[in-house]
Protein backbone atom coordinates (compact mmCIF):
# COMPACT_ATOMS: atom_id res chain seq x y z
CA UNK A 1 0.00 0.00 0.00
CA UNK A 2 1.35 3.39 -1.05
CA UNK A 3 0.45 6.34 1.16
CA UNK A 4 1.43 9.98 1.63
CA UNK A 5 2.78 10.83 5.08
CA UNK A 6 2.81 14.42 6.40
CA UNK A 7 4.74 15.85 9.35
CA UNK A 8 4.19 19.08 11.30
CA UNK A 9 5.80 21.25 13.97
CA UNK A 10 8.82 19.81 15.77
CA UNK A 11 8.16 16.36 14.27
CA UNK A 12 8.65 17.87 10.81
CA UNK A 13 11.84 19.57 12.00
CA UNK A 14 13.28 16.49 13.66
CA UNK A 15 12.58 14.26 10.66
CA UNK A 16 13.68 17.02 8.30
CA UNK A 17 10.80 16.51 5.90
CA UNK A 18 7.32 17.97 5.36
CA UNK A 19 5.96 14.93 3.54
CA UNK A 20 6.93 11.73 1.77
CA UNK A 21 5.22 8.95 -0.11
CA UNK A 22 6.02 5.50 1.24
CA UNK A 23 5.20 1.91 0.43
CA UNK A 24 3.93 0.24 3.62
CA UNK A 25 4.68 -3.42 4.42
CA UNK A 26 1.60 -5.63 4.22
CA UNK A 27 1.84 -6.28 7.98
CA UNK A 28 1.02 -2.64 8.76
CA UNK A 29 -2.75 -2.69 9.18
CA UNK A 30 -3.60 -0.29 12.02
CA UNK A 31 -2.48 3.13 13.27
CA UNK A 32 -0.61 1.34 16.04
CA UNK A 33 1.22 -0.85 13.48
CA UNK A 34 2.15 2.27 11.52
CA UNK A 35 3.58 4.02 14.60
CA UNK A 36 5.64 0.92 15.37
CA UNK A 37 6.86 0.67 11.80
CA UNK A 38 7.98 4.34 11.90
CA UNK A 39 10.26 3.49 14.84
CA UNK A 40 12.17 1.09 12.62
CA UNK A 41 13.11 3.69 10.03
CA UNK A 42 16.30 5.06 11.62
CA UNK A 43 17.52 6.89 14.69
CA UNK A 44 15.52 10.12 14.32
CA UNK A 45 12.33 8.18 13.61
CA UNK A 46 12.98 6.03 16.65
CA UNK A 47 13.54 9.14 18.79
CA UNK A 48 10.34 10.82 17.62
CA UNK A 49 8.03 7.80 17.69
CA UNK A 50 9.27 6.07 20.83
CA UNK A 51 7.08 8.39 22.95
CA UNK A 52 4.15 7.71 20.72
CA UNK A 53 1.58 9.09 23.19
CA UNK A 54 2.59 12.66 22.25
CA UNK A 55 2.29 11.93 18.55
CA UNK A 56 -1.17 12.70 17.18
CA UNK A 57 -2.39 11.07 14.00
CA UNK A 58 -4.88 12.20 11.35
CA UNK A 59 -6.04 9.98 8.50
CA UNK A 60 -7.39 11.79 5.45
CA UNK A 61 -7.49 15.01 7.53
CA UNK A 62 -9.43 13.52 10.42
CA UNK A 63 -8.19 12.96 13.96
CA UNK A 64 -7.74 9.32 14.91
CA UNK A 65 -7.60 8.88 18.67
CA UNK A 66 -7.87 5.09 18.69
CA UNK A 67 -4.65 3.33 17.70
CA UNK A 68 -6.59 0.25 16.68
CA UNK A 69 -8.18 2.00 13.70
CA UNK A 70 -7.44 0.35 10.33
CA UNK A 71 -5.48 2.46 7.85
CA UNK A 72 -6.98 0.69 4.83
CA UNK A 73 -8.11 3.26 2.27
CA UNK A 74 -5.96 6.05 3.71
CA UNK A 75 -4.35 8.24 1.10
CA UNK A 76 -2.92 10.84 3.47
CA UNK A 77 -1.72 10.23 7.04
CA UNK A 78 -0.39 13.13 9.16
CA UNK A 79 1.76 13.05 12.32
CA UNK A 80 1.97 16.01 14.67
CA UNK A 81 2.33 17.02 18.35
CA UNK A 82 -0.64 18.29 20.41
CA UNK A 83 -2.07 21.37 18.75
CA UNK A 84 -1.48 24.87 20.12
CA UNK A 85 -3.71 27.06 17.98
CA UNK A 86 -6.26 29.60 19.04
Amino acid at each position, binding site marked *: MSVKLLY*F*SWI*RERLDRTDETVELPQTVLTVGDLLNWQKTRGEEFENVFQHDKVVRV*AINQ*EHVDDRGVKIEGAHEIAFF*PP*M*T*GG
Partner: protein
Amino acid sequence: MTITPDIRIQAEDFSIEAEVKKLTEDHFDIGAVVTFSGLCRDEGGTLNALELEHYPAMAETEIRRIAETAIKRWSLQGITAIHRYGKIAPGENIVLVIAASPHRQAAFDGANFLMDFLKTRAPFWKKEHGKDGTIGNWVDAKDADDDALKRWE
Protein backbone atom coordinates in the same frame (compact mmCIF):
# COMPACT_ATOMS: atom_id res chain seq x y z
CA MET B 1 -32.85 27.40 6.88
CA THR B 2 -29.42 25.86 7.13
CA ILE B 3 -26.84 28.11 8.75
CA THR B 4 -23.43 27.82 7.11
CA PRO B 5 -20.44 28.78 9.25
CA ASP B 6 -18.04 31.27 7.71
CA ILE B 7 -14.56 29.73 8.16
CA ARG B 8 -11.33 31.30 6.94
CA ILE B 9 -7.68 30.37 7.35
CA GLN B 10 -5.58 33.32 6.25
CA ALA B 11 -2.28 35.17 6.72
CA GLU B 12 -3.96 38.61 6.73
CA ASP B 13 -5.40 40.40 9.75
CA PHE B 14 -9.19 40.78 10.16
CA SER B 15 -11.59 43.49 11.30
CA ILE B 16 -13.95 42.51 14.15
CA GLU B 17 -16.33 45.30 13.14
CA ALA B 18 -16.54 44.20 9.51
CA GLU B 19 -17.05 40.57 10.48
CA VAL B 20 -19.80 41.35 12.99
CA LYS B 21 -21.52 43.52 10.40
CA LYS B 22 -21.26 40.77 7.79
CA LEU B 23 -22.85 38.28 10.18
CA THR B 24 -25.68 40.48 11.47
CA GLU B 25 -26.58 42.69 8.52
CA ASP B 26 -30.17 42.18 7.41
CA HIS B 27 -30.74 39.65 10.19
CA PHE B 28 -33.14 41.50 12.44
CA ASP B 29 -33.81 38.49 14.62
CA ILE B 30 -30.29 38.44 16.10
CA GLY B 31 -30.25 39.75 19.66
CA ALA B 32 -26.81 38.76 20.90
CA VAL B 33 -23.37 38.66 19.34
CA VAL B 34 -20.31 37.37 21.18
CA THR B 35 -16.83 37.78 19.72
CA PHE B 36 -13.63 36.25 20.98
CA SER B 37 -10.32 37.53 19.72
CA GLY B 38 -7.05 35.91 20.67
CA LEU B 39 -4.01 38.16 20.57
CA CYS B 40 -0.30 37.49 20.57
CA ARG B 41 1.18 38.37 24.01
CA ASP B 42 4.70 39.72 24.36
CA GLU B 43 5.60 37.31 27.22
CA GLY B 44 7.02 40.04 29.41
CA GLY B 45 8.77 41.75 26.51
CA THR B 46 10.82 38.69 25.50
CA LEU B 47 8.85 37.74 22.39
CA ASN B 48 9.56 39.13 18.94
CA ALA B 49 6.88 37.11 17.12
CA LEU B 50 4.92 33.89 17.04
CA GLU B 51 5.12 31.77 13.91
CA LEU B 52 2.01 29.73 13.26
CA GLU B 53 2.31 26.56 11.24
CA HIS B 54 -0.84 24.77 10.11
CA TYR B 55 -2.11 21.79 8.15
CA PRO B 56 -4.08 23.54 5.42
CA ALA B 57 -6.13 20.65 4.09
CA MET B 58 -7.29 19.73 7.60
CA ALA B 59 -7.63 23.12 9.35
CA GLU B 60 -10.66 24.45 7.54
CA THR B 61 -12.48 21.10 7.47
CA GLU B 62 -11.91 20.54 11.19
CA ILE B 63 -13.00 24.05 12.27
CA ARG B 64 -16.05 23.80 10.02
CA ARG B 65 -17.03 20.49 11.57
CA ILE B 66 -16.77 21.95 15.09
CA ALA B 67 -18.64 25.11 14.08
CA GLU B 68 -21.48 23.05 12.63
CA THR B 69 -21.73 21.14 15.92
CA ALA B 70 -21.98 24.45 17.81
CA ILE B 71 -24.67 25.79 15.46
CA LYS B 72 -26.81 22.72 16.06
CA ARG B 73 -26.21 22.47 19.79
CA TRP B 74 -27.10 26.11 20.60
CA SER B 75 -29.38 26.87 17.61
CA LEU B 76 -27.05 29.67 16.59
CA GLN B 77 -27.95 32.08 13.81
CA GLY B 78 -24.39 32.42 12.64
CA ILE B 79 -20.75 31.58 13.33
CA THR B 80 -17.60 33.14 11.94
CA ALA B 81 -14.15 31.71 12.66
CA ILE B 82 -10.95 33.17 11.27
CA HIS B 83 -7.54 31.72 12.16
CA ARG B 84 -4.34 33.36 10.97
CA TYR B 85 -1.06 31.63 10.12
CA GLY B 86 2.45 32.90 9.51
CA LYS B 87 4.40 35.37 11.62
CA ILE B 88 2.41 37.38 14.17
CA ALA B 89 3.84 40.14 16.37
CA PRO B 90 2.81 40.90 19.99
CA GLY B 91 -0.45 42.84 20.10
CA GLU B 92 -1.61 41.42 16.78
CA ASN B 93 -4.69 39.23 16.29
CA ILE B 94 -4.33 35.46 15.97
CA VAL B 95 -7.90 34.18 15.97
CA LEU B 96 -11.46 35.48 15.83
CA VAL B 97 -14.63 33.61 16.71
CA ILE B 98 -18.11 35.16 16.48
CA ALA B 99 -21.39 33.56 17.55
CA ALA B 100 -24.79 35.14 16.93
CA SER B 101 -28.06 34.09 18.55
CA PRO B 102 -31.42 35.49 19.65
CA HIS B 103 -30.32 35.12 23.29
CA ARG B 104 -27.13 35.93 25.13
CA GLN B 105 -26.25 32.65 26.84
CA ALA B 106 -26.32 30.67 23.61
CA ALA B 107 -23.99 33.18 21.98
CA PHE B 108 -21.58 33.02 24.95
CA ASP B 109 -21.64 29.21 25.09
CA GLY B 110 -21.27 28.75 21.34
CA ALA B 111 -18.21 31.01 21.14
CA ASN B 112 -16.67 29.51 24.29
CA PHE B 113 -17.15 25.93 23.04
CA LEU B 114 -15.70 26.73 19.64
CA MET B 115 -12.59 28.30 21.22
CA ASP B 116 -12.00 25.30 23.49
CA PHE B 117 -12.08 23.01 20.46
CA LEU B 118 -9.94 25.33 18.34
CA LYS B 119 -7.26 25.33 21.04
CA THR B 120 -6.97 21.56 21.18
CA ARG B 121 -8.34 20.11 17.93
CA ALA B 122 -7.50 22.59 15.15
CA PRO B 123 -4.18 21.72 13.47
CA PHE B 124 -2.09 24.80 14.32
CA TRP B 125 1.28 24.95 16.08
CA LYS B 126 3.00 27.99 17.54
CA LYS B 127 6.75 28.61 17.49
CA GLU B 128 8.35 31.43 19.44
CA HIS B 129 10.81 33.89 17.96
CA GLY B 130 12.61 35.60 20.85
CA LYS B 131 13.65 39.25 21.04
CA ASP B 132 17.19 37.94 21.60
CA GLY B 133 17.23 36.32 18.16
CA THR B 134 16.53 32.76 19.30
CA ILE B 135 14.18 30.79 17.11
CA GLY B 136 12.72 27.48 17.81
CA ASN B 137 10.77 27.01 21.00
CA TRP B 138 7.56 25.29 20.07
CA VAL B 139 4.79 26.30 22.46
CA ASP B 140 3.69 23.37 24.66
CA ALA B 141 0.08 22.27 24.73
CA LYS B 142 -1.60 22.85 28.06
CA ASP B 143 -3.40 20.14 30.04
CA ALA B 144 -5.82 22.87 31.14
CA ASP B 145 -6.95 23.19 27.52
CA ASP B 146 -7.75 19.48 27.32
CA ASP B 147 -9.61 19.75 30.62
CA ALA B 148 -11.60 22.74 29.35
CA LEU B 149 -12.80 20.59 26.48
CA LYS B 150 -14.29 17.96 28.76
CA ARG B 151 -16.94 20.24 30.22
CA TRP B 152 -18.82 20.22 26.91
CA GLU B 153 -19.31 16.44 26.95
